[in-house]
C-alpha cells in the first residue's frame, strides 16, 4: 500500500535522510545544554561531573541516532518475544538480582550490570501498541482488558523490586496507549472507580514501609523536618527563595551550601528554580511543552495505527517524567525516584529516554515505509 500523506514533503531533507527530526532535536539539545549548566552548579562546581554528564549525553545521542535508523514497523515482529524475555528477566531480577540502595533492580550478566526495567519502558508501549493496532479502533473492551493485563504484569513485577517511579512510568505508558486507542469513556470511568478501590489494598498489602513513609511525608513534611521531611522542606525553601528572578547561576545558597539533598539528580529542579527563578521555570516548562507538542504532532501524522499509538505513548510518558519530577520536588506529589528528563545527572534512564526519542524520530521520518 502506498502512502498518500498530505504533509509528505516532495523532497526529503538532510535530517530526514539520516532519520532525525530537526525540531525535536533542537528541543532535546537545548535541555541537555541547560542541564549541563545546572549540573555544574549543583555538583559543587566541579568540571569532572560536567564532563561525565557530557559523555553520557553523547552516548545517549548516539543511541538515539542508532535507534532512529530502525524502521519502526519492524518492532512489531519482535514485540512478543522481547516482551516475554523482558518479563522473564524481571522475574530473574527478583530471584537473583543485585541489591543496590535497598532495592533489587540490577541483573548481573557477568560482563555488565543490566537493569531490565529500563528496557521495559520501551517494550511495554511497543507490545501494547502492537496488540491493540491489530484490531479496529476504537478498541473493544475485551482487547483493552488484555492490553491492560499486558501492562499490569511488568508494572507489578517492577513495583515489587521495589521501584515505584519506574513502575508508575511503565503503567502510564501502557495506559496512554489504551487511552489513545479509544477506550470508551464509560470504561475509563469504571477503571477509575476500580483504581480508587484498589488504593487501600495497595496501602495495606503491597506498599513497603518506606513507601508509606514517603506518602505520609508528602502529606505532612513538617512532622519530621530533619528526617524524612528534610528533602521536601529544603527543596521548597530552595524554590521559594528563588523568587521571580532567581539568585543567579552558582548563587543558590540552598544548593551551594548543600542544604538541598540529591541536588544534581532528582532534586535538580529545585537548584534550577532557586538560581533562575520563576522566569527560568517558565522557559523550562515551555521547552518541555514544545517537545511534547512536537511528539504529539509526529504521532498524529504517523501513517499506521501502531506508530501513532507508540509515538503518542512515548511522548506522553516523557511528559509524565516531567510532571512527576517537578510535582514531587515542588511538594505537589510524594517523593518517588523520577529524574527530571534530560536535565538530571544520571545515565541509565537517560539512555532509555533517548532511545524512545529515537523511535519517535524514526516514526517521523519513516512515513513512506511501512511493513
Amino acid at each position, binding site marked *: 500500500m502506498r502512502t498518500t500523506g498530505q504533509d509528505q514533503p516532495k523532497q526529503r531533507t538532510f535530517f530526514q535522510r539520516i532519520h532525525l527530526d530537526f525540531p525535536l532535536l533542537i528541543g532535546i539539545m537545548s535541555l541537555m545544554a541547560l542541564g549541563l549548566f545546572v549540573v555544574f552548579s549543583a555538583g559543587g562546581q566541579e568540571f569532572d561531573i560536567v564532563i561525565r554528564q557530557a559523555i553520557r549525553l553523547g552516548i545517549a545521542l548516539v543511541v538515539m541516532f542508532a535507534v532512529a535508523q530502525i524502521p519502526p514497523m519492524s518492532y512489531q515482529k519482535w514485540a512478543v518475544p522481547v516482551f516475554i524475555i523482558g518479563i522473564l528477566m524481571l522475574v530473574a531480577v527478583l530471584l537473583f538480582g543485585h541489591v543496590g540502595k535497598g532495592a533489587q533492580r540490577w541483573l548481573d550478566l557477568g560482563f555488565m550490570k543490566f537493569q531490565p526495567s529500563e528496557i521495559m519502558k520501551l517494550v511495554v508501549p511497543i507490545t501494547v501498541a502492537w496488540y491493540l493496532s491489530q484490531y479496529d479502533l476504537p478498541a473493544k473492551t475485551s482487547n483493552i482488558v488484555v492490553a491492560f493485563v499486558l501492562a499490569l504484569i511488568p508494572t507489578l513485577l517492577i513495583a515489587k523490586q521495589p521501584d515505584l517511579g519506574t513502575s508508575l512510568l511503565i503503567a502510564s505508558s501502557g495506559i496512554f496507549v489504551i487511552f489513545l486507542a479509544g477506550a470508551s469513556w464509560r470504561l475509563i470511568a469504571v477503571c477509575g472507580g476500580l483504581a480508587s478501590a484498589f488504593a487501600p489494598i495497595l496501602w495495606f498489602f503491597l506498599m513497603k514501609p518506606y513507601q508509606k513513609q514517603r506518602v505520609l511525608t508528602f502529606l505532612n513534611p513538617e512532622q519530621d523536618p530533619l528526617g524524612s521531611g528534610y528533602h521536601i522542606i529544603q527543596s*521548597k525553601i530552595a524554590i521559594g527563595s528563588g*523568587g521571580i528572578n532567581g539568585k543567579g547561576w552558582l548563587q543558590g545558597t540552598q544548593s551551594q*551550601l*548543600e542544604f538541598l539533598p540529591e541536588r544534581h539528580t532528582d532534586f535538580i529542579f529545585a537548584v534550577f528554580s532557586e538560581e533562575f527563578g520563576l522566569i527560568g521555570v517558565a522557559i523550562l516548562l515551555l521547552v518541555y511543552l514544545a517537545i511534547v507538542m512536537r511528539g504529539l504532532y509526529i504521532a498524529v501524522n504517523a501513517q499506521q495505527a501502531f506508530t501513532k499509538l507508540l509515538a*503518542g505513548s512515548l511522548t*506522553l510518558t516523557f511528559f509524565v517524567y516531567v510532571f512527576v519530577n*517537578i510535582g514531587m520536588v515542588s511538594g*505537589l506529589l510524594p517523593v518517588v525516584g523520577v529524574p527530571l528528563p534530560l536535565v538530571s545527572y544520571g545515565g541509565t534512564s537517560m539512555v532509555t529516554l533517548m532511545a524512545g526519542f529515537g523511535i519517535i524520530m524514526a516514526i517521523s521520518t519513516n512515513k513512506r515505509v511501512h511493513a
Partner: protein
Amino acid sequence: MPSRKRISIRNHSAEANLFARRTFITFIGVIVMLLILFSNVYSLEVSSYDKYKTKSNSNRIKLLPVAPNRGLIYDRNGVLLAENKPIFSLEMIPEDVENIEESLAEVAALLDISAEKQAKALKSIRSKRRFKPVEISSRLNDQQVAEFSVNQHKFPGFFIDARLKRYYPFSDLTTHSIGYVARINQRDSIKLEEQGKAENYAATRNIGKLGLEKYYEELLHGTIGHQEVEINNQGRIIRTLDFTPPIPGKDITLSLDIELQMIAKRALAGKRGSIVVMDPRNGEILAMYSNPSYDGNLFVHGISSKNYNKLRNSKDLPFINRSTQGRFPPASTVKPFLALTGLEENLITPEFEIFDPGFYQLKGVKNKRRDWKRWGHGKVNLTKSLEQSCNIYYYDLAFRLGITKIATMMERFGFGDYTGIDVHEERSGIMPSVEWKRARFNQQWYTGETLSVGIGQSYWTVTPLQLANATSILANKGEIKIPHLLKSTTEEVTEIVDGQEVSRSVTEEIIYEDKRPIVLNDSKNWDLVLDAMHNTVQKYRATGYNAFKGSTYDAAGKTGSAQVANIKQDEKYDAKKTQENKRDNAMFIAFAPYEAPEIVVSVAIENVAEGGGAANAAPVARQMMDQYFGDRVIISEDQSRHPHHENVYGAKKLSTNP
C-alpha cells in the same frame, strides 16, 4: 495472529480522527498539568517568597556571639589587681591532619602530654565534625608553647589557641574584697535568664561569684558582640558576612592600697583576725584584710575537690571574710560611744566621778562583777574611764542609761546594721535590745545583760568594718560616710573627630552620698570623747600608750579585750583546740591625725595569748598607720584642742624626749 486482510479493510480516516481527538484531549491534559505545575511554583516563588527567603537565610546565616573582655581592676595607685591573662591550649582540626594517631603521638612526645589526654582527644575526634577544632591539652605552660611554636611546621592541622582567663596577681591578698570569677553554672544561667541578661552572656564563660567581681558584674562584664557568618548544611563557616565588635567592660579603680594591704597581711601572719583601714573623709576603704585567706585563682580554673574540702574543713575558716562577716564582741572599743551617749543624756559630765573598788554590785544581787584591775581604779572620771578602760564606770553608766537608750544611740552609729559596703558578703552583726531579744528568743530583757552591753559583751557582736565605720562617724563628729571600695570607673570611648575615629579613655569618679548625720544636743560632747581617746593613746600608762610610743603622727584610739565568743561554725568539741578558743579576742580602734583625721583603723584578732587589745591589736594598728603616714611628721600645736594635757603630744614630744 490476525490476518493482513483485516488490516486492509480498516477505516483509516475514522481511526485517524479518533486518534487525533484523543491526542487533542491528552494535549489539553498536558497544558492543564503544566499550568498546575507553574501555578504551584508561582505560589512558592512569588506568594510565599518572603517566607522562604527568610527560611533560606536562617538556614545559612548564623550569629556567633563574641564575648567582651572583662574590665580590669586596679588599686588606688594603679596597681593591677585583676587582669585577663592569655592561657594557651593545643588544638587540632582533624580534617587537616593526615595521620591523626601518628601525629598526635609525635606532638604528645614533644610536649610531654599524658596518654590519658591523648586518649581523651582521640575519643572527641571521633565524636566531633572533622572541621571543628578538638582540644588536646588545655593550659600549656610557657615552655610547651615555645616548644610547639618552633616545631609547628611539622604538624599541619595543630595550632595553639589563646583565651583570656581572669588572673589575680596578689592571689590571697585580695580574694576577700575582690572575690573571683568562675564558670557560669546552671543557677547563674537561670538567674541571667530571669534578669533578661542571658543574651548578653551567650559567649561568656565566667561570671563574678564573690566580692567586687560579683557586686560590679554589670560594670565589668561589657556588651556582647556578634559575628554574622554563612554556614553550610554541616555548620562549617564559609565566610564572615558582618562583625559587630563587643564592648569591653569598664575598668575599675579601687580605694584599696595594695601596699597597705600587704602590711595588714604581714601584721596578721599566723593569727586569725581582720584589719580594716578607712578614710573617714570619704568612706574609702584603704585596706581590708582577713586572715587566713585563700587564692581566688583556684576557683577561676575550677577548684579541685581536694583543695576545696581542705579549705572548707579548715578550723581557721578561710572562706569567712572576717572584716565584713566576722562576729566579734566589740568589748571595750564601744566605751567611747557609750560615754558619748551618757554625755548626751546628761547622766555624766566630764567632772562626774565614780569610785571603783574593783567590783560592781547591783542592789539586792549577790553576784559581784569584777573589774579587770583587781584592786580597782579608785576615783574615775570620763577621761580616766577611757584611758584605763574602767569597766565599773560603764557598768554604772549602762545601768543608768538602760538598754533602750543605748541601743537607740548605737544603731545611729551603724551597729546591728549593714554598712552598705559594695560587697554582698556582709553581716549586720547584732545590736541587742528589748525588742531584739523578744523577737529572737521570745525572752524578757534582764538588767544584768544591760551591764554586759555596757562593756561591749552579751549578745552584742560587730564586724571590724562596722567598728571602723562607727569610729569614722565619731572622728567625723557625726558625719556619716558610706564605706566603699570602688573609687572610679574607666572606659574607652570612641568618637569621630574630623571624620576619624579617635578613642580616648573616660574616667568617672563615683560619688557616694552621705547618710543623714548624727547631730548632738551639745556638739562639745564630741570633743570630750575624742579627747579622751587621744589620751588613751598618748598619755603615759594609758592603755594605748605603749603601742604608739614614738609615732610621728598624732593618733587616738581605744583598746578592747573580749571574752571568748569565737565565730563558730558547726565546730566539734576538741580539747586541744578549746584551750586556745577560750582565750580573749584583741580589739582596737584608732584614727589619726587627731586634729584632722585621715584614716581610721579597726583591728580584731581572735584568741590572743595574753595582754588583750593593748598588747596585740594596738601594735597592729600602729603598723598600718606607720605605713600610711610614712615619713610624714604631723605636729599637733593647737593647745586649745588638748585641755587635759600638760604638754603637746606627737612629734614635738618625740623631739624633746628622744
